[in-house]
């Protein structure tokens, strides 16, 4: 009586060995089939866990639709007037049918293009839907060149470029009456006639004559590690283990039943 049978006191002859019996019962076709099923379910769960893991390392903004920032889409399809630029729209290549407003040009200082610091010529577009849109036309190494380019900066028709969020006006040096931030709220104060406004601005893909192209690279998508999905992945692994355990438990129940331990339906 070396076996621990203290909780089964009333079984007349304690089973010689449940474990020894287990192997014989488990080898029956019925339980082998059940094991195959359990392994299949476990594999399915593991697969789901892997999928969760792949979902947990996701690029923000690509979850809803597989939107590619490098394929130009109409601005009206990604942005709404009078609303901020959301993550999925950030850096999107867009096309817009608009005309520039003469006289609403201004020059921003301290604009880096690559390593060189210089000036941006910025303007006021009005789309065919009568919505204002700030536009960065091009870069120049000095203020004079940027201001001179105004004369040949008339824009109209279908314009293409990248849609970026407005910068904070705080970057501007007001005391020196220098404007260096591409701040839409600041710009609209200078435009005499404004209706609805897009929250972001357009960086023209092709500059107007006399200016250099503003370097505007493909946005680096923020890679986020979604902890919730990691937890779910762990959960699936546990479920997979549990499927195998359940098989073991059911076979053991069958063994115990044969050895005189009844189960009830």
């Amino acid at each position, binding site marked *: 009586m070396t076996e621990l049978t203290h909780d089964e006191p009333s079984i007349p002859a304690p089973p010689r060995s449940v474990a020894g019996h287990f192997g014989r019962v488990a080898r029956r076709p019925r339980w082998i089939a059940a094991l195959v099923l359990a392994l299949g379910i476990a594999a399915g769960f593991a697969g789901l866990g892997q999928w969760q893991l792949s979902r947990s390392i996701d690029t923000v903004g690509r979850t809803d639709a597989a939107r590619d920032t490098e394929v130009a889409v109409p601005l009206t399809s990604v942005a709404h007037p009078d609303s901020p630029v959301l993550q999925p729209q950030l850096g999107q290549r867009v096309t817009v049918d608009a005309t520039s407003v003469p006289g609403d040009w201004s020059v921003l200082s301290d604009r880096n293009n690559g390593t060189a610091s210089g000036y941006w010529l910025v303007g006021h577009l009005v789309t065919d839907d009568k919505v204002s849109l700030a536009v960065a036309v091009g870069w120049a190494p000095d203020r004079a060149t940027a201001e001179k380019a105004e004369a040949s900066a008339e824009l109209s028709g279908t314009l293409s470029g990248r849609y970026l969020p407005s910068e904070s006006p705080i970057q501007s040096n007001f005391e020196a009456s220098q404007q260096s931030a591409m701040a839409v709220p600041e710009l609209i104060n200078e435009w005499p006639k404004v209706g609805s406004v897009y929250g972001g601005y357009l960086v023209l893909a092709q500059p107007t004559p006399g200016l250099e192209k503003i370097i505007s690279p493909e946005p680096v998508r923020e890679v986020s590690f979604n902890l919730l999905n990691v937890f779910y992945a762990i959960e699936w692994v546990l479920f997979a283990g549990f499927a195998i355990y359940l098989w073991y438990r059911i076979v053991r129940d069958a063994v115990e039943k044969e050895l005189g331990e009844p*189960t*009830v*339906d």
Partner: protein
Amino acid sequence: MPNTRALDAPRIRAVLKVYRVSAMLTGVFLLALVVMMVLRYGFHLDIEFNGPFGVLALTQVGHLTGVNLSVVLLSVHGWLYVLYLGLDFLLWRLLRFSFGRFLVIALGGIVPFLSFVFEFQVPRYVHTRIAEAEAAQRVEVSA
């Protein structure tokens, strides 16, 4: 051979109590989940909490800035169901009923309204089983 194994009645009753609460909670969240699914896949709307459109609002999927209650519902139900399954498992082990019954009870967290039925049916079944086992014990003792 008679059922000679005494059931651990106090422990079963304790588990049963937790099971009932879990069945009710899981059932409620399952109904909320159904509403959420209809909104998301039928109307392409998510439930937004504390967003720009008020404390509770229905917002187009993917345009939420507040807390996405739809996702919260989804995960809370998920975890409640894990708890429900755990309790189902405990009852199965303690009462030694069939694996089929275990699976049927498990459906309670997936089929809407079913857990509300089980919330009453399972305790009735469990009490019957405990009574049976105790009666069998008495017979054995007196024999």
